[in-house]
Structures are given as C-alpha cells and as structure tokens.
C-alpha cells in the first residue's frame, strides 16, 4: 500500500488528481482504527500532516473570523488563544478521545469522516462555519450546513482536499456539552452547542440525527422571547422544542428516547449558562 506524504497543498492536490481513490489522513485516529479492524483495506493513502499551510490558524479580529487549518490538532484548540476566541470549540475539543488522540486528531479529520457523533461538528454548525476545499484546479468554500449531507457523507468531491474552516466569532456567549456513558474518552451519545450572537440564540445538535441538526424552530421561538430575562420555564420550554427537532435512533450506545431527552436537557442548561439564568 503506497503512502504519499506531500509537503505542500499543491503536491497533495496533484497526487489526489492522480489517485482519485486515495484516502486522506492527518492524525489517522479514526481511519487507522478502521484499518486495524479490517473494516477498510485502503489501496493508497495520502498523509496531510507534513503540509505546513494546513497546520496554520489565525484569529482575524477585524473581520471577527477565525481560520483553522484542517490539520490543526484538537490539542491546539483546547487552550490558549484559539480557546479564548472559540470557547465552545475548546470545550468540544476537550471531549475528544484521550490526550494522545487530541494531539493527533484534527478538525479536518472530523469533517472528512463526517460522523453525526463528530465532536467538533455541532460547534461548526452553531457558529455558521464554512469549509474550504481545494482540488488541483479549483477551490471553493461551502457553509457547513451544505457540507455535511448525511451520516458519514459530505459534499467534498473525490479530487478535493479539505484545507480548513473559517469560523465567525460570536459577540455573545457560546458553549458545548456532550453526554457519554463515561466521564471521559467516550463517543458522544448526544451533544449540543449553543451560541449567542447579536442577542440571537443558535443551537446545533450532535448524535441525534443523520446529520448535525440546527434547531431552526426552537431558535425562532427563543429569539422571539426576551433573552435577557430567561426564567426556568422558558429555558425548559426551549429544551422541549429542541428535543422535538432531534431525530435520534436506538443503537447499542443508547436509545432514541434517552437521546431526545438528553439534548433537551443540555439545551436548557446551556441556555441558562449562556444567559446566567
């Protein structure tokens, strides 16, 4: 099995043009497990971890947008400037696997795999992030909502590399919470990101549907309330409305009923945290 380790983005996209069935990896924290389990038998692999451009991130205070290269590991988002700029992303990053996984795993990997349980994805959805893609002859940017199209399915074309994400900062509170049946190192059973920008609440759910779910009805309802004066009954009603927008299933990790309940509780609590209610 050939493994290519390009040192530039253009080299990577050329390689991909030559080997359109190649698998792209950065940390390999998801992919290599699948290989070890014999679930995948890749013929060609292109490793993106030696491409300096994809390791970059910056915070543009003027435009209010944070760019994070696809190969930036979760460990970088957990604390420091990125965490200050995007607290919800930091909270999500801290829930990913173990410290070893967070040192290797990247946001590009989360986007490439596009699992509904991907820990960073509800944050990208709630913060209206956009995903940058590049092929050997073109580049384009998609809103996250158009990028993820199904469970483990995304709009990336076979000849494209995910180069990074642009995430607008919020001028209000943002936070993330995730339920797993263990206090650390666990795959999400249900997760919620809530962000407030220009006094407008946005909420996105993970692990409770085929894609990350933005709760447009619950958002409309809460944004018709006075969010400077959230009392318990409003927060609970918001949670109930969020629950109703989830579309969970039963599997070996949990039940649909529990997941629906859990996202409602998390949404209520995050709204209370965000509004100091």
């Amino acid at each position, binding site marked *: 099995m050939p493994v290519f380790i390009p040192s530039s983005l253009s080299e990577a996209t050329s390689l991909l043009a030559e080997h359109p069935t190649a698998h792209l990896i950065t940390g390999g924290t998801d992919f290599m*497990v699948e290989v070890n389990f014999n679930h995948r038998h890749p013929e060609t692999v292109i490793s993106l971890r030696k491409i300096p451009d994809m390791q970059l991130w910056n915070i543009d205070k003027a435009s209010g947008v944070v760019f994070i290269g696809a190969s930036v590991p979760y460990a970088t988002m957990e604390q420091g400037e990125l965490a200050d700029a995007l607290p919800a992303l930091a909270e999500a990053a801290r*829930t990913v696997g173990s410290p070893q996984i967070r040192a290797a795993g990247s946001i590009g990997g989360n986007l490439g795999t596009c699992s509904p349980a991907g820990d960073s994805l509800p944050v990208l959805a709630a913060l209206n992030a956009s995903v940058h893609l590049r092929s050997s002859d073109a580049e384009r940017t998609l809103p996250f909502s158009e990028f993820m199209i199904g469970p483990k399915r995304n709009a990336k074309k076979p000849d494209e590399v995910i180069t990074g994400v642009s995430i607008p900062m919020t001028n209000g509170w943002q936070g993330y919470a*995730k*339920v*797993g*049946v263990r*206090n650390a*190192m666990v795959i999400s059973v249900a997760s919620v990101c809530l962000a407030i920008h220009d006094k407008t609440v946005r909420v996105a759910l993970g692990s409770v549907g085929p894609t990350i779910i933005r709760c447009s009805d619950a958002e409309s309802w809460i944004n018709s309330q006075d969010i400077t004066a959230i009392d318990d009954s409003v927060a609970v009603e918001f949670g109930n409305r969020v629950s109703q927008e989830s579309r969970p299933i039963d599997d070996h990790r949990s*039940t649909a009923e529990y997941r629906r309940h859990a996202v409602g509780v998390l949404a209520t*609590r995050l709204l209370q945290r965000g509004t100091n209610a």
Partner: protein
Amino acid sequence: MTITKTHRDVLGASALRPDGVAKVQGDFSFSSDLHAENMLWGATLRSPHPYARIISIDLSGAWKIAGVECVITADDVPGQLTYGLISEDQPVFAKDVVRYMGEPIAAVAADHPETCRRALAAIKVEYEILEPLTDPERAIDGSHPDIHPDGNIIRHQRIVSGDITATAPIVVEGTYDIGMQDQAFLGTESALALPDHDGSGIEVFVATQWLHEDRKQMAKCLGLPEEKVRLVLGGVGGAFGAREDISLQVHTALLALRTGRPVKMQYGREESFFGHVHRHPAQIWMRHHATEDGRIVKIEARMVFDGGAYSSTSSAVLINGVTHTQGPYQCPNAVVDGYATRTNNPPCGAMRGFGVVQACFAHEGQMDKLAVATGIDEVEIRLRNIIHTGDTMITGQVLESVAPVERCIRETAALPLPAEMSSHPHELDLPGGSGRTADRRHIVRGIGWGVSMKNLMYSEGFDDYSTARCTLTNGKVELKFATSEVGQGFVTLAPQIARSILGVDDVTYDTIDTQIGSAGSTSASRQTWMSGGAVDGACRLVRERLFEHVGALHGVDPLRLGIDDTDIIDTIGDFRISVQEACADLSISETFEYHHRPTEDLDENGQGNCHVAFAFVAHRAVVDVDIELGLVKVVQIATAQDVGRVLNPMSVVGQIEGGIAQGLGLAVMEEIIVKDGKVRNPSFTDYLLPTALDAPQVLISMIEEPDPQAPMGAKGVGEAPCISVTPAIVAAIRNAIGKPIDRCPVRPQDICF
C-alpha cells in the same frame, strides 16, 4: 536471644514486583511479543451466526493462496474432538452446527497475518441459519429443542434448608438483573507453538491461568501423551477468569504439528471478545422474610445464570451463586432454585467473583429493601443479621473461617466520608466529566452499602493442590512452581516467603512451566493460600534439613534452632551463625505439595460441606448523580476487608483498588450487549471501561485476623474487592434518586426515566 528488626523484603513488606519496572517501561515480554525463526502465523475462521447448521465447508480457495501452509477443520483434529473445564462439550472446531457467534470453524497457518486474513476470507462456508435460543427461560421451560446433545440445562441445583413453611411479618422481594461483563484483560490471547523436530511432541508458550489444565485438555485433543505437550507461561497482561478456558491453544499446536514449523497465534481485541468466556448475565428473584426488628427468618430465591452455548465452568458458577444466597448473614430457613442454562448466547464462565457477584447484587438489594420495610438503618439491619464463625449456613456447612463481618462493617463506617461538594466544583469532578453536562445545582449525592462473603479455593470435592520446589544452594534460593503469574503478584510473594523462612535474601524463581507438578489455577482467590502454602511447605522442609546440618555440625539440638532475620539462632541459647555461613557448599532441594482440606458435593437438597473457606468485606459508596441526565460520578469507596494477614501491603492495596474499579465498571458502564445472540459492542470503543476520571477515591482498612486454616494466616484478597462494591454503588444511586433500580450496569435511562 535477641530478635533483629529487619527491612528486608520478607512477609509483611511492600516488596516491589520483580517485573514491575519492565512492565511500566514497556520492556516486559508479553506472550504476544514471542517470536521464533521460520515462524508462521495462525488465524481462526469464526461463525457469523449464533445458530446455524453447516451445510458445507470449501477450503480450496484458501489453499490456493500463496503463502498459505495449512488449513484445518474439525476433520483434522487427531484426538478428542471436544474439550472443556468441567464437561467436555465444546468442539475444537464446529463440525455440523455452530452454536454461538464467533465459534471457530477452521484455522489457517500462513507466512503473514495478512495472508491469513485473505485465506480466511477465501474459505466458503454454507450455512442453514437456525432460530437461535436466546431466552434462558425457554431453555428451562423446554419450549425450544435441544441445541446440544447435553441438553439446554447445564445444571439445576436446589437448596432446601430448615423449615420451608416458615414465614415472618416483614416480606420484601425483588428481581435483579446483572449484565454480561467482560474481563477485558490487557494482552489479548496469544500463543507460540514449537513442534519437536521429530514431530512427536510440542512446546507451547501461552498466556494462561492454569498450565497443567491446558496441557491436559490439549493432549487429549492432539492425541498425544501429556508428557509430549510441554507448556511454558508466556507473559500475561491480565486474566480475571478469561484465561481459564482453552481458546487458541489447540488450534496453534495443531497448526504447528501439521506444518512442522513454529506457529504463532494472537487475537485482536475484537476477536478476543469472541475468543473467551464472559461473566454470566443473571436474573435473580429473592424474597426475604424477616421479623419486625429486621432479623432474617427465611430466604426464597430463584437464580438463572445464562451459560451460553457451552458449559465451561457454568455448573461451578451456579453453585457459587446459590450457596451465597444468604450473603454474610444468618439464615435459618431457605428455598433456592438455581439454573445454569445453555443458549446460543456467548459462552460464559469464570470471572473474578465467580457467581457470587450476581448473588451479592441481589442479596444486598434485598437488605436495603428490608431496611426500608422495617424502618431500620441500612447499616444496622446488616449488623443485626451478620454471620459468625460457627454458624450453620444454608448448605448445612458450619462456617469455620474467621468471620470478622462486624469489624468489616464498623471499620468501613468509621472511615471518613468525603467533604461536601464545594459550591464551585471543578468541572471534571461532576457527573458527565469532560462533557461538561452538569452544573453544581443539578447534582444530588447518595450513599450506599454492600457487604459480601466469598468462598476461597475450588469447591465440591475438587482437590486443587499446588506444588513447589525450593532449592538452597550456596546460600541462594531458587524456587520452582507452575503458578501462573497473571498480574496478581505471586512472583513477588513467593520470594518473600522464602526470605522469611530461610533468612536468605537472594531468591529467584525458575521458568514457570509444566516441568513440575500442577499449581492449580490462578483463580478463586487461591494462589496465596495454595501456592503460597506449597512454597511455604517446601521452604520449611529445606529449613528442617538445614537445621539438622547446622545442629549436627555445632552440637545443637536442631529443634532448638530458629531463623532470626538472616541468622540461624539457638532459640534458648546463645549460639548464632549467619545463614550464609551455615549453608556454604550446601545444596538442599525439597518439593512440597499443598492440599487444602477436602470438601464434598452438594446433595439434591443443596446440603454438603462444599466450600473450603470464606473471606468477607464491606463497601460504602458515595456517588454524585445528575438525576435529570442519569449520569453518575462515584466519589468515594470506603472498604474494610478481611484479609487474614497482610503479606504485602502494596499488593493488597493494588488488588483492592483494581477490584473496586472492576466492580464500578459493572455498576455503571461495563456490559456486553447481546441482541438475538449477536454481540453488538465487541471493542473498547463501545465496551466501556472506567477511566482514571471515573475512578473514585478509595479508603482502605485491612482487617488482620489470621485464619488458622490458612498456611500463613492469609486469605486470598483478589475477588472480595469487586463483589459488594457493585451493589454499594447501585444502592448509593438509589439513595440519591429515591427510586428503585434493580439492574446493573445502571444506564442513564434507568435513572432519568
């Protein structure tokens, strides 16, 4: 005479593990690290179906693959076609029918693991899928045709004791469900088989709990005399019962004998979930009758342990379950009905606690119900019923072991409770941990209790002896034993024993293999008692001869001689000589076989002196619960354990803390999920084990009341820590949320709905 205080690594000292540094630094050679020149790799083809008839097996595709050296099925087994620890009912390879998902059908040997994988994929098996028997109750009621020639009930055992018509004013009952737990040991199954040059025998390095039992079963299936099968212990990562049964031993040896080349086999983690037995899932109904002041008058119980497709140790697990119905409490009258069933679920067998875990979960749930029904505090209700040395148990057996149950409870209660949660706790300390699901105001604290008794050693007439040899040469001691070191620390303890008895510091142990008599299994909390007894006995025999030698040489009656630290002294005189000086140019070797006292089978009414000895323990759990989300953080476990005598404090702490982590796993997360006979979560992604963040503070009190029946006064400490901690945690959750939960592991939905 004067007695010297010592700082040597004798009994009572926290001697360090001889393999400890190597294990921490990654230098220790586990059985999976074994390698031989010209070695082939072996792999196993397994059934994807829980129950199916095999119509045909076509091996031709596998034979055609370059690098494949051997493909074998049931037709290639030269000796007995089946094996088993108690009943030989499990095929080496399935022939006409597969009875569980993952049952071996064929094995291949090839030049590379990837070649093996392709060869397995090229084997075509045609199945006729059958309706699996997955409900143990249908195995009992006879409504499903037999799935095995031995029938669908592996064992039925009743216990009828005292006046079965007795009643009392307070009656509480409950039905308790215990999930299927995995041993989840480190270092998956692995073996390296080296055929003799003339093909007449074989040497096998394997990670196992019992070399001689493996050898016995392997020799039968291989059609070889036992002396032609030599076993050497490979480095073991852990066992917890899962390495008692044969897994890859016969397959690896057979491939090596057929190819005439060394063959190595190693399971991946997913295959490991199918390659070994698990803890029996059980459903237990109990009804306790008690006086108004909370004294137990009668217990009725029905226990169903699902053994899965093959019997393994199910019949012994069942008798442990039924004979521990009463727990560490007096019970004058009892009616117990127990079944071990055969189904198309994964085979179950030995796991730390061995049937007592399940019984304890039920009897401790009942004690809490009794506390509520009588209005008596949950500690007091237990104290009122505790069993004492000399009491007669429901089997008619008189409890002869030291039984400090009251001290276990009182000393646990005396350990400090954790501080109240602060108003701004660290987010990682809350239930939900790194997921940041809760705030302080969502958390409720609960406290719960569990107390247990556990039999030590094998039961029902089984003579599970152990053998050891001690050789004293020029002031150095070498020990020889076949005791499997699976992490429990016998390789630390055995030299401590020799140092104490012989006054020699330089003590080593020889390769652990079958070149000496059996040590029995490293299970049932038995090796300190049994192999410790054997080493103790062998060292004492050597010391006797050393004293005879010294006595004759120096004109002192050998009976007056004793060991003081590293000297031989006249215990009633002034003579003193260092052991080193006394045994220069001397070589003494003695072998000792230790047997515990005999036990008996149970009769049809469950009566008989079936157990050797018992150990006791109490656990108090403090948990924080997020009721709305159903998430739990175990804050603290306090425990006082009856250990007899502490031979290595650090080792005992390790056993207690590890056992508590394993019991915590069963309480709140560890469960193999089986649906329609199929395992749904055979990986550490979805079979969740506690992490460091899930592990509680552990406070320990070791109760030392040396047991006169134990060779060194010490009771086995391996199993007790993991038994009553599970019901204690579940009781604490019930206490926090104020509603009944009668199953474990407790899932979020069990708490919040």
